[in-house]
């Protein structure tokens, strides 16, 4: 069952078209990456998904039904531009957010305590938000998003402002939620995170979906033309005309094969000159695919 199903949605603001006939489906129990350069239309798409704005055309379906506001009780949304009430205590803030999502006060309080302990901020529960560091505030917002145990979790740049330890904590939590059957959509610029976590992606550029599908399907569209070789001895095989974009290290080289070049022939040539420990033809990284697809444009 698709938890999110956008069918040719479009949105314009004054003369600027933010989203053009964008369609995507997110299956239950998967982690989905919404990618794209700044200004590509990601946030506009998400805002339509959670009913903050309405599409000019096209339809939004959540949980296999046309969008209704009461669906939002089953959704946890962490926006990119996020804020908290500065003068409110952390625990009061979390209870308030939980209540807005339909929890009663005592249940919200109990869950908030559990989450604060799990995210290692239990000692700050009675502090005012303005007394906390940015990273701590990020965690509180993360908790506020998950407090009501949503079936669909939408996170816009969830790891911005977090240190590597907390990024890892966040990733573990997302994988755990996925294992419980929750569906997660997240938008990020961190490609290594997407490669690690996402089952499927949609790359948006200038309001259009330019690349979409499961991670494997997306990568399989690109040839395995990148080679990593580890060797000992004569490195003259690296001057072969089929090699381009060469990066040499001590006993290791990374390069790209020119179109039509034969990897097997190159391996045979290399083995004649040097002792080969590793010769791997790897698929392009998501970052490469991203740059190739949006043409190096990162701030449209």
């Amino acid at each position, binding site marked *: 069952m698709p938890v999110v199903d956008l069918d040719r949605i479009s949105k314009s603001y004054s003369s600027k078209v933010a989203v053009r006939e964008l369609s995507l489906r997110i299956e239950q129990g998967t982690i989905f990456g919404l990618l794209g350069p700044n200004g590509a239309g990601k946030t506009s798409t998400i805002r339509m998904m959670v009913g903050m704005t309405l599409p000019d055309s096209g339809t939004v379906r959540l949980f296999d039904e046309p969008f209704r506001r009461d669906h*939002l009780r089953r959704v946890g949304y962490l926006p*990119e531009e*996020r804020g*908290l009430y500065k003068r*409110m205590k952390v625990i009061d803030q979390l209870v*308030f957010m939980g209540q807005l999502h339909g929890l009663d006060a005592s249940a919200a309080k109990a869950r908030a305590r559990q989450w604060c302990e799990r995210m290692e901020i239990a000692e700050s529960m009675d502090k005012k938000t303005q007394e906390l560091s940015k990273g701590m505030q990020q965690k509180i917002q993360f908790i506020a998003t998950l407090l009501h145990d949503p079936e669909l979790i939408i996170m816009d740049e969830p790891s911005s402002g977090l240190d590597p330890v907390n990024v890892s904590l966040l990733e573990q939590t997302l994988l755990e939620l996925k294992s419980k059957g929750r569906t997660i959509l997240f938008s990020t610029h961190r490609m290594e995170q997407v490669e690690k976590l996402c089952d499927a992606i949609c790359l948006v550029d200038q309001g259009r979906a330019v690349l979409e599908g499961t991670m494997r399907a997306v990568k399989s569209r690109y040839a395995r033309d990148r080679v990593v070789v580890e060797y000992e001895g004569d490195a003259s095989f690296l001057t072969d005309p089929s090699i381009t974009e060469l990066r040499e290290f001590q006993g290791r080289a990374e390069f790209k094969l020119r179109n039509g070049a034969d990897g097997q022939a190159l391996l045979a040539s290399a083995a004649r000159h040097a002792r080969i420990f590793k010769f791997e033809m790897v698929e392009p990284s998501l970052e490469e695919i991203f740059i190739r697809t949006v043409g190096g444009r990162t701030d449209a």
Partner: protein
Amino acid sequence: MHEVLLIARREYLERVQSRAFLMMTILFPLFIGLMIGGSVFAGRLSSSAKNIAIASNDPVLAREVAAEMEPAPRSTKPTEVIAPATDAERAALNRRVEDKTLDGYLWLEKKPGSNAPEATFVSRSSGDLFSLGGIESAIDHGIEREQLVRHGVSSGEIDAMKHHADIQTMQLRQGQLIPSNSVKSFFGAYAMMFLIYFTVVFYGMNVARSVVEEKTSRIFEVLLSTVRPQSLMAGKLLGVGAAGLTQMAIWILLISAIVVISAGALPGVTGLTSYGIHPQQLFFLVAYFLLGFFFYSAIAAAIGASVSSEQEIQQFSMVIVAPLTVGMVLITYITSNPTALPVVLLSLFPPCTPIVMFLRMSSQMPPAWQIALSMLLMLVFIWAAIWVASRIYRVGILMYGKRATLPEMLRWMRYS
């Protein structure tokens, strides 16, 4: 509805638990208490003992004017009369005024062939209007007395002929005669009108500021994924309005307590009713505060949603302050002419209604139909203000970085 109440509760608690609320709750009645105390003190000062001498070349005139001078309260000395006075005595009087042994003297010089003397009052201060008014009246009556004496009537006979009538003012309210004091009623009306003005402007601007704060802190992004903008605005207005009402209730109780307590302790201060403050009026105070608050705070919410910083709100604050100030500026005219057509029309014009209608009530209760009409018109305007504001609010709160132009706001209103 549940989410509206949750938001209203949060807004209410945030305000009533703040230090600013506590400070205002204490300081405002203190300010009113100081005003009451100050007015009593000023009254005492103005009626404090004044030693004035009367000097003239005509002894009869000097004596009879002195007889008409109001005896200064708590003064042990009778008005000093120097007549016939010489230039040397005038120089001596000048020295006494400079030495502060005399507050002032009245120099009356009668020219031959003229009944009216030339009068000069000399004192250290440039002009005391209240003293001068009394002295002029004393001279006028003194001249009459002098003429009567010259026609053979004795001073004692003149005193016996004179009667002073004391006027007691009564106000007719719902068939009952209630003793009133126009000065105190004016003061009471002014204090209550100020209460409405202050709370409507303060809490209205508070709404605008809190919208901008939530907009700049981006908390809207989080809230709007669960709550409709209209519910967010409704909750905010209800919560802030309830905080304003709480503050007003505390103030009314505290000010009433101050007045009632000081009525026993301070001479010149009496119960609330002598200030024209009746239970019925307190009901209308609350009613017009609420009507004014919801009208102006809806406008304030739209202002807050269409700007990006608190500084920009100031530029729009005149939209709220100006119509309310009209009533304050015209307070004397309104309380003196509560049934004049311009006043009636102004009291039915919703942006001015809370202040002007309330001032009319303090002076003379308007017909019930006018009160009902004013409230009905206000409700219509409130509905319209909320309708427009919620549309601007809905779009405006997600727009960052620049102030909306009027055409943009009109376009936002068309979005549905």
